[in-house]
């Protein structure tokens, strides 16, 4: 037994070493930096230890803006993208002809580069002196007024960012959900049919509970992914996100480190730790809620 566990640890050693050096140590380091005031990475010096970094970050209007943006993004995109993905996968599983073609089409955004997709969205939504963009063309048909989605009002920019995010994250969810739906044994549907169960009731009482572990996995990873959003905003609004008012928490951390206003690893660390705390809290809440609604076989 003793020997067995020694062997086990030996096999785990490479992974533990790498995780320790590149994940755990930096995490602890960031945690320490976040309390060191005025830390300078070049001279490795700091003035003192305390909570000043946190109070600065939490009072910084750019950070508050980023926090608000991130929360809106999370609350809008996670339920919507999961819901749409579920709808599309159920539709996909109920058709037979051309299913593979549709599956490929729905999966295309996943293998497309984020920045390339961003370019397409610019063309769709951007208002230039020459054209109002495709989206405004459609709005025009319904008698609406042209809006600049990229440089215009805040809600318009938020709208584009949400649509973009949903569009980018959906393919993966569809892929996972389609395979989860396919793994539900046909016999349960037969049993439900013989018992005269309506389609809707079959979906709610049988299909959903049976794929609930997958749905839950997608919600958790969806929350975490959305909290860590950054590149999507860059693809749409460029690197100066603070100016556009579309920064995210990760974007704020990046700006604090390397941006034009950068060079403040302490503030960046504090912001990163706040993000970590937020994600941890939300994930714990998710886990608690899920206990009641997720059925593991």
């Amino acid at each position, binding site marked *: 037994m003793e020997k067995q566990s020694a062997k086990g640890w030996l096999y785990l050693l490479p992974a533990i070493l790498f995780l320790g050096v590149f994940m755990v140590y930096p995490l602890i380091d960031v945690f320490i930096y976040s309390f060191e005031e005025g830390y300078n990475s070049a001279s490795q010096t700091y003035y003192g230890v305390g909570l000043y970094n946190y109070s600065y970050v939490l009072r910084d209007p750019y950070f508050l803006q980023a926090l608000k943006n991130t929360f809106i993004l999370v609350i809008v995109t996670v339920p919507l993208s999961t819901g749409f993905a579920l709808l599309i996968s159920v539709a996909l599983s109920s058709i037979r002809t051309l299913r593979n073609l549709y599956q490929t089409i729905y999966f295309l955004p996943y293998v497309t580069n984020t920045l390339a997709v961003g370019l397409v969205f610019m063309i769709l939504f951007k208002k230039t002196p020459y054209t109002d963009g495709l989206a405004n063309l459609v709005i025009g048909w319904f008698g609406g007024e042209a809006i600049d989605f990229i440089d215009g009002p805040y809600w318009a920019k938020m709208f584009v960012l949400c649509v973009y995010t949903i569009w980018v994250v959906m393919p993966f969810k569809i892929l996972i959900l389609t395979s989860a739906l396919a793994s539900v044994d046909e016999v349960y549907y*037969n*049993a439900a049919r013989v018992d005269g*169960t309506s389609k809707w009731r079959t979906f709610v009482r049988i299909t959903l509970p049976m794929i609930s572990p997958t749905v839950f996995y997608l919600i958790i990873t969806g929350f975490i992914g959305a909290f860590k959003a950054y590149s999507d905003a860059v693809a749409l609004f460029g690197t100066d996100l603070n100016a556009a008012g579309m920064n995210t928490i990760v974007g704020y951390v990046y700006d604090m480190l390397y941006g034009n206003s950068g060079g403040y690893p302490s503030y960046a660390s504090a912001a990163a730790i706040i993000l970590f705390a937020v994600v941890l809290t939300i994930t714990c809440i998710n886990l608690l809620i899920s206990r009641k609604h997720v059925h593991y076989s």
Partner: protein
Amino acid sequence: MKIVLQNVTKKFPSRSKGVREDVVAVRDFSFEVPDGQLIGLLGPSGCGKSTTLNLLCGLQKPTSGRIFFGDDDVTALPAEKRGVGFVFQSYALYPHLTVLQNILFPLENLKGKDRLSKEAMREKAYEAARLVQIDELMDRKPSELSGGQQQRVAIARALVKRPRVLLLDEPLSNLDARLRLQTREEIRRIQRETKITTVFVTHDQEEAMSISDMIVVMKSGVIQQIGKPQEVYDNPVNLFVAKFLGTPPINVFSGRIDGGRLMIGGDAVLAVPGLDDQEVWVGVRPEGFVLDDNGPLCCNFSGVEVMGRDISVVSTNAACENAAIRAIISAESRVDTQKKTVRFSLNPGKVFIFDRETEARIPFESI
């Protein structure tokens, strides 16, 4: 509720490339299940018995022919409207629901005036659970039950809505030998108590023979014989039915009729006056052998198997199609194990002669 099948045929399109012909799973199937009886559909795998069950419950539609429940033509009725109870081979209990929720499920599907109050539903669910003796397990999940208990829950779920017809697909195949015996008695009892016309499918002839009022023996989608189990056993219409029923299986010899005598190898075993000279198959039930030092059939003795009450004498004969001949004899008989050969006379009632080509039964009168 009696069930009538009229010329029911089910074809599936062939899956193999280049083959245009459809696969016929059930061919021109006609029979009538009298009200309140327990019918066993019996046959080897791939004989179309499960397809027949699916046609009855409406999960599949017949290519041609009609199905009646009582006087109602249900051929075009979808599964959800037929009012059948179905017990699946794998039970198909919803794993995320408790036993009570599983049994309630069919009742909660009812709409309009058929819908019961919550209390009435619970009452009915408990009634069904008591019938199969699982009313103390109502709060468990299916994964916390044994195979036999799951089986009972599946039956309770099928019965709770008072189906017109109860269908069971290989109901005992997932149970161990001891539980199987117990459960088949249970199914019989429940069927007697509820008087619901029941059709069940099995490949196990012993199971079918032991509890059915009638058995239907099938092969490659075609009905071979319908009748009471003992009648079919005593009077098989062809070699397939004779081989399929009975444990140990029937012993088949290649024989011939020569001048009114039935010959196996060089031994004239029975007098069969009136039959033409021809090559035949001879089937002898294990209990048809009688140890007899002066008997006509001589076999090479290989051993004795004692299985509780029965003793079977194992021997070989060049003309026998089985690897070994098994003869069941009464426990009082003495077998001289020193001898190289053993001699039998045959009980004519346990001997069947079949045509060599068509394998159909050739009746004979022995003197």
